[in-house]
């Protein structure tokens, strides 16, 4: 189980921002989200980054029940 957060347009595509999802890895979280095809496609989009417990990760990460997994589309400040 992990707390999944969606930011920017990803939350609009999914229609939610925060959800608890079963999974012990990022791949398992992605698989659990794959039933929503538009979201799954958006998560694979160019420039989407993943953070685990508020640290940007590249590749895979082990998750615990307390993990917070964020999917973040391309960033634009200023």
């Amino acid at each position, binding site marked *: 189980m992990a707390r999944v957060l969606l930011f920017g347009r990803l939350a609009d595509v999914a229609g939610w921002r925060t959800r608890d999802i079963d999974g012990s890895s990022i791949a398992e979280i992605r698989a659990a989200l794959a039933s929503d095809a538009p979201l799954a496609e958006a998560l694979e989009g160019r420039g989407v980054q993943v953070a685990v417990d508020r640290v*940007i990760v590249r590749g895979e990460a082990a998750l615990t029940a307390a993990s917070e997994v964020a999917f973040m589309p391309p960033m634009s400040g200023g």
Partner: protein
Amino acid sequence: MSVVLQDAPFEAGALLTAFSAGRTETGAVASFTGLARAEGGGTSILELEAYPGLTDAEIARIAAGAVERFGLQDWLVVHRTGRIAPGEAIVFVATAARHRREAFEACDYLMDYLKSRAPFWKKSHGPDGARWIEPTERDRTDVERWETP
């Protein structure tokens, strides 16, 4: 050396005055203020989303790079979140250094990184609906200037 994320509007002049006060070994303070544009009526409100705990940490990491690269004495980044009206300030960056070149360049560097590397998501609301704003090609090439050896 601090990052402030806030929903409330801020007054850039007051921030600059406070940042500049009491400096006896700083020869140069540079600042930048970014304002929300109306885009000819196309944007009535900008909505800025951040990820507290990650956004501030990433900005601090970017600024630590500027301190090392330019020998900055101090810096301040104030960034709005939430709903911002045209004409209001979105971002304020100030840098302090012994000499002007370092202060100017560090301010430019920080803004280039904030535009495309800091965790913010920006949505424009207008008469034609809402749309997400993502970094432009120009934003990408601006930040790449600092990454070529």
